[in-house]
Structure formats: structure tokens, C-alpha cells
């Protein structure tokens, strides 16, 4: 009974934990501009993150080594440092976007400006990182994040033309107002939102935090294989809501109020209240994960003691790095920069950085010295190679497309 409960809990938190500000914003923007013509990218991204998170979790559980320890060992200090700088910067950008997302959601709920909420959100993130146990942190934010299911309910409540939606998704057409370049630019953004690298840092470090062993592999695989695809379904629901309401009305997504507009039309204030709880939980959860990831990757690269399972006094540098990262994120937001814009760029940069972590994990997952009997099988390697090509293509195409489209304008 306890086993079933823990599996169910794991799956539910994986669903809630899959979505963050990047998924919310990108799916809504894409839905409002392209309808469901990019829904296939979510499917590709979800399969990718399942494969990738599973591999990182397996490496961590079997060898006890988290991602960045391995990257340094395999690539040497010089290349690993370049990799770390890029990963750290993009992670910081995502952390900034998530803290901004929490502030925007609280602004939507209270009408108090986001500048007032930024320090509150940043302080709350720090307190949880400092004091709250890892499993409680994961379960609470994951379960409350499930309120985002309101987006799926809204799709039904809006009584869409189902045939039309299915047609948009299965026979994608680029509308006359959009160019092929913007279509592919947003395809990369959506791919980056589904496969953000911090999820992998966090997943592999979390496996060490929770002292996973080979025995836990089955449970973790199930969490990922069921939870992430259901999270992907919610992503498509967000895009569908935008496609039903925002696309015909030619409404541009510039803030959270447009993202939640379909929910308000479908269910009024009650559903809006639920969706705001969901957005706060999802972005707050992701802010915690990115703040921790900042500490994890630097500590792992430099061989410091790290982890929430230690007393902060036993991992002093780790805690100082996280504190500085949170303050830096809040400081960037205080320049008055639009969190939605930070999010839009952070998902594209995530796509650019994907090969940096994907390749070393793939190499180590094939190293029998680390993995023993759990070394990648032939099927996994075939799929992984296909994804390596997709990831490299997305990474290389991202910057040229960003320049050509002026950031998707």
C-alpha cells in the first residue's frame, strides 16, 4: 500500500513539476500565434526529456555521481569550465524568469505591483532552500502545481470545434501572417521549454539528495514515464486554450493576464483562483529547483560538499552560492525588465545549451565502469542518438533564427 502511495505521489509531483514559467508562456504564445500547429514539438520534447532525465537519474542512482561531477571528470577542467559558465548563466536566467513569474502571478491575484512581490518571492525561495526538507519541498509544490489542470478543464468548458483543433495539430499549416523562420524559431523555443537543462541537473542531484540506489530505479522510471507525458498533455492544453480564445481574437500574449484569459472565459473567478494557485506553485517550485541547481552545478564542478540533506553549516559555500544567485535574479528583475521577455529568451538559450549536458550524460551512461549492468541498451542508444541529432540541430539553428526573426517578432 505504501509503495502504491509513493508511486502515485511521485507521478503527481512529476506532472506538477514538469510545468514552469517557460512552458506556460511559450505554450500560450505559440497557441495564440500558430494554434496547435506546433503541438508535435511538445510530443518530441516530452519523449526527449523522459529519455534524458531517465538516463541522468540512472547514472546518479547507480554511480552516486551527479551531472557536473561527471562533466568535469570526462571533459577536463577547461572544457567543463566553459560548459559550467554557459550552464550557470542560462540557469540564472531561468531562475530570474521563475522568480518574476511568481511575482506576476501574485500581482494578478492581488493587484499589488510586481516590484512589491519580487523581494517577497525571492525571500520565500531562500527560506525554503535554507530550511525545508527536500521531499516536502518537492511534494508540496508538485501537488499544488496540479491545479494547472484547470487549463485542461477550460478546454472542455470552452466547447471548441474539436475537428478543427485536431486538424490544426495533425496537419500543421503556417498561417499567412507568420513566416517559416518564426515557425521554426518557436519550435525551438517550445523544445527548449520542454527539455530545460536545469531539470536534468536537478533530477540527477535530487537522486543523490534522496539517496537513490538501483532499487529506486523502477519507481523513478515510472514517475518520469507517466508524469512527464501527462505534464506534456497540460502543456498542449495551455496551447489549446490560447488557440481557442486568443488566436481568433488576435490577442497577443504580453503578460500573465492573457495566458489566463481563456480560463476566465471558461470558468470565471473560481477557475482563475485555482489557476493562480497552480501558476504560483509551478513557478515557485521551478524557482527552488533552479536556485538549487545553481548551487549543485558549481559545488559539483569544484568538489565542494553540497546538498540539502546536510546541515547548512556543513555545506557553507553551496548555501552562499544559492543565496547570491537568488539575490542576483531579484536584482535583474529590479532593473524593470519584463519577466515574460526573460522567459521567452531563457527557453531559447536552454535549447542552445542542451548538447552541453546531454552528450556527457550519454557517454557516461554507456560506460560500464560507472554503470555496471545498467549500461545503456541498444534501443536506448538508438533513440538517444536520434535525439542527439535533433538537439544539435536545434542548438545550432537557434541563434541564426533568433537574429533573422528578431527574437520571434
Amino acid at each position, binding site marked *: 500500500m505504501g509503495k502504491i502511495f509513493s508511486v502515485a505521489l511521485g507521478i503527481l509531483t512529476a506532472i506538477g513539476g514538469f510545468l514552469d514559467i517557460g512552458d506556460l508562456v511559450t505554450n500560450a504564445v505559440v497557441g495564440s500565434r500558430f494554434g496547435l500547429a506546433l503541438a508535435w514539438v511538445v510530443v518530441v520534447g516530452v519523449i526527449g526529456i523522459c529519455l534524458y532525465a531517465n538516463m541522468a537519474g540512472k547514472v546518479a542512482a547507480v*554511480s*552516486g*555521481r551527479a551531472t557536473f*561531477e561527471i562533466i*568535469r*571528470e570526462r571533459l*577536463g*577542467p*577547461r572544457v567543463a*569550465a566553459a560548459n559550467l559558465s554557459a550552464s550557470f548563466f542560462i540557469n540564472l536566467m531561468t531562475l530570474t524568469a521563475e522568480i518574476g513569474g511568481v511575482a506576476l502571478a501574485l500581482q494578478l491575484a492581488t493587484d499589488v505591483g510586481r516590484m512589491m512581490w519580487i523581494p517577497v518571492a525571492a525571500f520565500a525561495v531562500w527560506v525554503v532552500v*535554507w*530550511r*525545508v*526538507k*527536500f521531499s516536502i519541498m518537492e511534494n508540496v509544490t508538485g501537488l499544488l502545481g496540479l491545479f494547472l489542470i484547470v487549463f485542461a478543464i477550460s478546454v472542455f468548458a470552452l466547447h471548441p470545434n474539436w475537428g478543427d483543433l485536431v486538424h490544426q495539430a495533425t496537419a500543421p499549416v503556417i498561417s499567412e501572417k507568420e513566416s517559416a523562420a518564426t515557425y521554426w524559431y518557436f519550435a525551438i523555443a517550445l523544445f527548449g521549454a520542454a527539455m530545460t537543462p536545469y531539470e536534468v541537473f536537478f533530477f540527477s542531484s535530487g537522486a543523490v539528495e534522496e539517496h537513490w540506489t538501483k532499487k529506486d530505479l523502477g519507481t523513478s522510471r515510472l514517475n518520469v514515464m507517466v508524469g512527464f507525458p501527462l505534464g506534456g498533455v497540460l502543456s498542449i492544453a495551455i496551447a489549446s486554450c490560447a488557440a481557442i480564445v486568443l488566436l481568433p481574437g488576435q490577442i497577443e500574449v504580453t503578460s500573465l493576464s492573457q495566458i489566463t484569459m481563456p480560463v476566465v472565459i471558461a470558468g470565471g473567478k473560481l477557475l482563475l483562483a485555482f489557476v493562480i494557485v497552480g501558476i504560483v506553485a509551478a513557478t515557485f517550485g521551478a524557482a527552488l529547483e533552479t536556485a538549487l541547481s545553481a548551487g549543485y552545478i558549481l*559545488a559539483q564542478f*569544484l*568538489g*565542494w*560538499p*553540497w546538498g*540539502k*540533506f*546536510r*546541515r*547548512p*553549516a*556543513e555545506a*557553507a*559555500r553551496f*548555501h*552562499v552560492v544559492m543565496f547570491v544567485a537568488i539575490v542576483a535574479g531579484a536584482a535583474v528583475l529590479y532593473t524593470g525588465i519584463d519577466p515574460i521577455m526573460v522567459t521567452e529568451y531563457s527557453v531559447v538559450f536552454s535549447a542552445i545549451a542542451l548538447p552541453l549536458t546531454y552528450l556527457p550524460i550519454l557517454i557516461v551512461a554507456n560506460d560500464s*565502469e*560507472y554503470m555496471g549492468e545498467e549500461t545503456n541498451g541498444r534501443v536506448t542508444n538508438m533513440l538517444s542518438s536520434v535525439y542527439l541529432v535533433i538537439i544539435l540541430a536545434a542548438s545550432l539553428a537557434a541563434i541564426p533564427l533568433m537574429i533573422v526573426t528578431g527574437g520571434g517578432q
Partner: protein
Amino acid sequence: MTDLPSIPHRGRLVDARLHLLDRQLLDDEGDPAGIVDDLELTDFVVDEDIPSGTEAPRVTGLLAGQVVATRIFGGAPPRSRLQEISWNLVASVGTVIKLKPTDMTLDAGWVERWLRDRIIKHIPGGQHAAE
């Protein structure tokens, strides 16, 4: 490139670059104690022909310290920045290098100690595990 001479040996062949350099060091309680930055070898003359029959140099210790900058940008750090951990203290070489119990405090941790004693200890909750 000629093949290296194959010398019969007992035990396991370890590639210093692949299996020792940049490996995580764990102390006897399993806590991270730094990263292997270099190796200490027995004396041998550099840049001269080695007469045949000379004994091969041996690894006498692991070196660890705050030298990540020179590891990345090149150059040799002052020897004082590196602390030697005698090979006798190595308990096992695997995906991590485990050390035997020792009284030696690892110098690599002075920043950690400074931050702990000056900052982290003074913030409420800093000395207790998360709940």
C-alpha cells in the same frame, strides 16, 4: 606511435589521467573533500635521456587545492597552494577516490570554514538539518 611495453602486473591498471585526475575525493565519512588536481611522483629527471634499467617513477600522493584557475587557464600554481595526500591514505579508487580515516585537516576547505564560521553559523537555522 610505438606500443608501450607490456609489463606483467598484479591488480588493476589505472590510467592516471582518466581514473585519477579530476576525480572527486571523499573522506572516510563519505563527505566531499576536494578534487584530485595533480599527482606527486617519485623524483625523476626531466628533459634528459633516461638510462635503461631505471626504475619507473611511482605515485606517492594526490595533490588537491584551490588551483582551479591554473587548471583552466594554464600555468603552474605555487606548490604551497597544493596539499599532498599521501597515497597510503587512499582507501579505494573507483568512480570516486575514498580516503582512510586521518587526523589531517584538508587545507582545501579554508574558504568553507571561513564562510561557515563568519556567515552561515550566524543565520538562524544554519546549524540544523532542514525539517
